[in-house]
């Protein structure tokens, strides 16, 4: 037997065991990518150092995996030489050296399923111990044996006929699997759920729109809360010391007609900090009170331990869809700073508590109101990255304005409930960028301009690189300290996904999905 083959057998035999402690200590095993963002802190940072500004220009495609669906958004997991991929109603384990399937799993899509206001997509899986967890468009959370793809359990999370869908990658922590929900354009009432990892029994549900008698309910009028939105379609982060889960909450419903839901509309457009054992709300911070521009705060919360104002702090950072970069204290939710990172024309700034000082007449109107950013935001669901080595927060930016319109909003279950729309400034009137911000101040250190607004996330590496993508198909590497472009590759399809990095045979690889394929690069 040749050594390579022997090694492969060894790897596969030991594969697919990801106890909680391994995920917790992901920093000590950069050869794997064990959770959606690479670690619980939401950093999307690889500690691998083999790829550097000096050698990255020699990157080549090692293999390609083909999907059936377009605009793939998956962020793969890699555990001991096995890569786990997902697509709508689909999961696969593949040999990370060759891209060959080890198993696949599929679930039929109900004929009457509608995705209202978003693409049919799936952003990835979670792994814990020997089980892979996948959400489905028809609102099931499925547990699969990581070695065979056999189904262990199936939990129904919600009813797709009301506009709920699961597109988010679950978050697995000790003994639990957390999941969020899409449907913010269909007047759902959003939530974050936790399920027992072993059995699929629901342990708790946190409603993002508080019901009667709950704190925050007073920010809604009458029955408006019942169709209040507050989707949770991007994976949260976790602080094991505080035992808090942080999750981003989406827009209120209807999106663009705020007249029919007066008030701040908590906890839409907020980060919520939840007790991981009970789902009880510890704190919240609302970025955009009474949002009328569809600026979901469905972002990966980035947890940073750094010195702020002279003392070490537990921080949480967010480049928000509304155009501002925020830094909060994650023990309390206290606002520390906020500054624009993208063009915005709707707020003069933020007050001392972080509440926006809204410029009058920037709401959607009958005749249309031109505002930056567009409803897709200064950035969107795709991941930012934080490098503890440079202290920089990297974010892919969309510089695009839009004329916002307000229209009537009549709720009918399971249908569009937007209350308006936009005409975005497209073509050469819009562009994109990757920007590096000093994480503790929000000051821009560099930017790399992109031809058009992007839908691709970024990943920094300890080797001193930032990987990113473009809607025109470019996958590229920048110098993490200067933003200088060092390498680029035309993938042939729009990149609407996040990069990951891992080792194969001891060599650093980088993977990115682009339209219907996933490409793996190495030297």
């Amino acid at each position, binding site marked *: 037997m040749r050594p390579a083959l022997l090694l492969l057998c060894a790897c596969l035999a030991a594969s697919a065991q990801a106890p909680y402690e391994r995920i917790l200590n992901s920093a000590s095993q950069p050869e794997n990518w064990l959770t959606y963002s690479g670690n619980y802190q939401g950093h999307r940072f690889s500690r691998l150092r083999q790829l550097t500004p000096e050698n990255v220009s020699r990157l080549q495609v090692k293999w390609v995996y083909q999907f059936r669906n377009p605009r793939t958004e998956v962020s793969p997991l890699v555990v001991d030489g096995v890569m786990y991929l997902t697509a709508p109603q689909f999961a696969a384990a593949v040999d990370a050296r060759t891209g060959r399937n080890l198993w696949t799993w599929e679930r039929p899509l109900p004929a009457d399923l*509608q*995705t*209202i*206001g*978003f*693409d*049919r997509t799936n952003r990835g899986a979670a792994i814990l111990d020997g089980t892979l967890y996948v959400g489905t468009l028809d609102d099931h959370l499925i547990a699969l044996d990581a070695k065979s793809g056999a189904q262990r359990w199936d939990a129904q999370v919600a009813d797709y006929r009301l506009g709920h869908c699961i597109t988010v990658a679950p978050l697995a922590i000790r003994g639990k699997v957390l999941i969020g929900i899409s449907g913010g*354009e269909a007047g759902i009432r959003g939530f974050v759920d936790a399920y027992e990892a072993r059995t699929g029994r629901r342990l708790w549900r946190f409603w993002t729109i508080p019901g009667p008698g709950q704190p925050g309910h007073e920010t809604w009028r009458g029955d408006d809360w019942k169709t209040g939105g507050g989707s949770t379609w991007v994976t949260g982060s976790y602080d094991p010391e505080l035992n808090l889960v942080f999750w981003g909450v989406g827009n209120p419903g209807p*999106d663009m007609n705020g007249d029919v839901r007066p008030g701040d509309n908590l906890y839409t457009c907020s980060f919520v900090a939840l007790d991981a054992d009970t789902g009880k709300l510890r704190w919240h911070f609302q970025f955009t009170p009474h949002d009328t521009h569809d600026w979901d705060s469905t972002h990966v919360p980035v947890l940073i331990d750094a010195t702020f104002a002279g003392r070490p702090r537990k921080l949480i950072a967010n480049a928000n869809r509304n155009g501002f970069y925020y830094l909060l204290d994650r023990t309390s939710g206290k606002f520390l700073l906020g500054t624009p990172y993208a063009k915005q024309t709707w707020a003069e700034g933020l007050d001392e508590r972080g509440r926006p000082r809204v410029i009058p007449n920037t709401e959607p109107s009958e005749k*249309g109101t031109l505002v930056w950013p567009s409803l897709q935001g200064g950035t969107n669901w795709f991941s930012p990255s934080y490098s503890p080595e440079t202290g920089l927060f990297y974010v892919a930016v969309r510089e695009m304005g839009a*004329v916002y*319109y307000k*229209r*009537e*909003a*009549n709720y*009918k279950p*399971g*249908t*569009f409930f*937007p*209350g*308006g*729309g*936009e*005409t*975005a400034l*497209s*073509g*050469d009137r819009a562009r*994109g960028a990757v920007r590096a911000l000093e994480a503790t101040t929000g000051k821009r250190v560099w930017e790399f*301009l*992109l*031809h058009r607004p992007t839908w691709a996330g970024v990943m920094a590496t300890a080797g001193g690189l930032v990987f990113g993508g*473009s809607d*025109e*198909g*470019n996958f*590229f590497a920048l110098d993490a300290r200067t933003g200088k*472009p060092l390498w*680029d590759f*035309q993938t042939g399809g729009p990149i609407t996904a996040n990069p990951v990095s891992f080792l194969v045979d001891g060599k650093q690889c980088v993977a990115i999905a682009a339209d219907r394929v996933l490409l793996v690069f190495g030297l």
Partner: protein
Amino acid sequence: MPLLSVLAALALAQAPVNEAPPDPAQGQRLFESQCALCHGQDGRGGRGPSLARPRLKHVPDEAALRSVIRNGIEGGEMPGAWQLSPHEVASVAAYVRSLGTVRAEALPGDPGRGAKVYQARGCGSCHILRGEGTGFGPDLTEVGARRSAAYLRQSLVNPAAAFPEDFLYVEAVTSDGRKIRGIRVNEDSFTIQIKDSNRMFHSLRKDQLRELHKLFHESPMPGYQALASGELDDLVAYLASLRGEP
């Protein structure tokens, strides 16, 4: 009850429920509140494709258009608007049709004479029309369905004032000083592809260019201000008659 009234009542009772003609104004209201989030408030696209075009990819005919609105596109991203009544669906369909098609207007010129002006002035040396001509400028085969007579007149007299969307004239200067002028065929963050007036493609990496100018206010098309006004009327009438029909 008089006999006539009875007959009228019977006729009404037997009429299909969706007999009322589609109401494009109602269609517009529904479109703007239900469809515009993806297709754009003016139907020119956003997350979803632009509908402001004479031919729609998934709808060969009126029945197909109504079916797509009502049921969505199977396997695609577009959900169906099953909550709409058949009459509302018909109204949205009528509005969508109006987005992509300019209504035929009564014009002073003569299309037959205009066709001769088109030939005599050599328009086909840059444009394609029903497969004939040269592919440098935009294809004109159905330009009359997409553009009003006023727009066509302006694009003839002052071409730079009436650009088609995503049509851009550019000038690149390579690191060795070579100048390339032409139409931007494609562009990404690292490269640009240009077609020059000899219909040659140029593939350029941006980091190897000394300069790249986007000539937003220039057009390679000459202005036809000097056309006799009758000729101009005829040419506009001819172009307006080009509606893509065989």
